[in-house]
């Protein structure tokens, strides 16, 4: 399952932030997005994940093959670790959460309510969710926030295993994960104001400027 992004322009709040993006992600490959804060990495990931429409250009990929992990983990504090994971496994129609628990060292916390986890443990649980989705393309937004060194290594192992199994990953991160990954710096693709007359999708509304 290849993800191909061609000539993509994305906008945040109606204002274009990045333009002319081209990249592709082959099975087994990983792509690390770099760029200063506020440049539009999150917006790019949301666009690729299909949560928001592109201003121009295309994202070619089956939306049913993407697993998206955002800043927030979508955990329910009132449910236990295993209930949280079982829920997502049911939603994605996969069976078994043992591998996910093992991969992120959550086995000892199975019956703990998610609200009683530390920030790092919550994050691990959020990432473990990726394993139960069973989807080949991971789109990860700052996955290592609040993880300690050992957990980052755990995460890197999970990504490596995922890639080895023919999956792929698009990751926005600032730290070096020690992955065999291409780095894609989005900084140079910042939308130029003079080109961005069509802040409102398409040339039709250029008249606003």
């Amino acid at each position, binding site marked *: 399952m290849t993800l191909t992004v061609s000539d993509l322009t994305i906008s945040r*709040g*109606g*204002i274009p932030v990045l333009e002319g993006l081209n990249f592709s992600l082959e099975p087994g490959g990983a792509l690390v997005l770099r760029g200063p804060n506020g440049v539009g990495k999150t917006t790019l990931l949301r666009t690729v994940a299909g949560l928001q429409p592109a201003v121009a250009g295309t994202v070619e990929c089956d939306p049913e093959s993407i697993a998206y992990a955002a800043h927030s983990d979508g955990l329910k504090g009132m449910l236990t670790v295993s209930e949280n994971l079982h829920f997502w496994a049911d939603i994605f129609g996969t069976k078994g959460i043992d591998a996910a628990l093992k991969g992120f060292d959550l086995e000892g916390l199975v019956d703990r309510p998610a609200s009683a986890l530390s920030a790092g443990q919550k994050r691990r649980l959020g990432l473990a969710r990726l394993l139960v989705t069973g989807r080949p393309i991971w789109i990860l937004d700052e996955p290592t926030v609040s993880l300690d060194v050992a957990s980052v290594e755990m995460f890197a192992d999970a990504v490596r295993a995922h890639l080895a199994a023919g999956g792929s990953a698009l990751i926005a991160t600032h730290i070096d994960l020690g992955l065999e990954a291409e780095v894609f710096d989005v900084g140079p693709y910042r*939308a130029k*104001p*003079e080109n*961005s007359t069509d*802040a*409102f*999708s*398409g040339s*039709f*509304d250029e*008249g*606003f*400027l």
Partner: protein
Amino acid sequence: MGSIWEYANPVKFVRTSEIVLPWVSVIAMVTLVVGLVWGFFFTPDDYRQGSTVKIIYLHVPAALMAINVWFMMLVTSLIWLIRRHHVSALAAKAAAPVGIIMTVIALVTGAIWGQPMWGTWWAWDPRLTSFLILFLFYLGYIALWEAIDNPDTAADLTAVLCIVGSVFAVLSRYAVNFWNQGLHQGASLSLDKEENVADVFSTPLYICMVGFGFLFIALVFLRTRTEIHKRRTKALLARERLG
């Protein structure tokens, strides 16, 4: 002269409306003055209702516009959702306050007329109630526009609300009719000759209705232009911040 959608281009719209607006305004003014003066001073008093009947020249056109403005918003909302012309969404936004004012005029003049006729300012008559509900719909629609920052999101959400609201407004109308058969007179101008108002009253009434129609068109043109300029200012500021 190309397709009608050309006018959905903001620039084209602003240019065209600049030419059309003065004419429409003048027509609105003239028809309103003629219709209202004729209606107020040159028609006889009704044999039952006396001179109170003359408020009809404000009441009926306002009520008519109150409904038609919502209908126009429904059409422009559909155009926005289907064809994504920003001018269309902005026209719907521009029309809503005009519509709510028309509704208020219809309600207030109705109350003023109702007091001497029915002996009460307000009754839970189906027509009155329906207009009150219409007022609430306008209120919600405008409030939703005001509440959302992103103009495209606001346009989408209000457009869907307008469509859903239209369906429920019609449902409410039937429900209210079912709930209470009222004392409001039937439609004053209908093809059914029996209940028509007399011809002496109807000609100035028609003129007033045309006048209100043109007044509405003028106001919507003006307000849509304002919205376009506002949107443009916003876009320019955004570009400045970007650069």
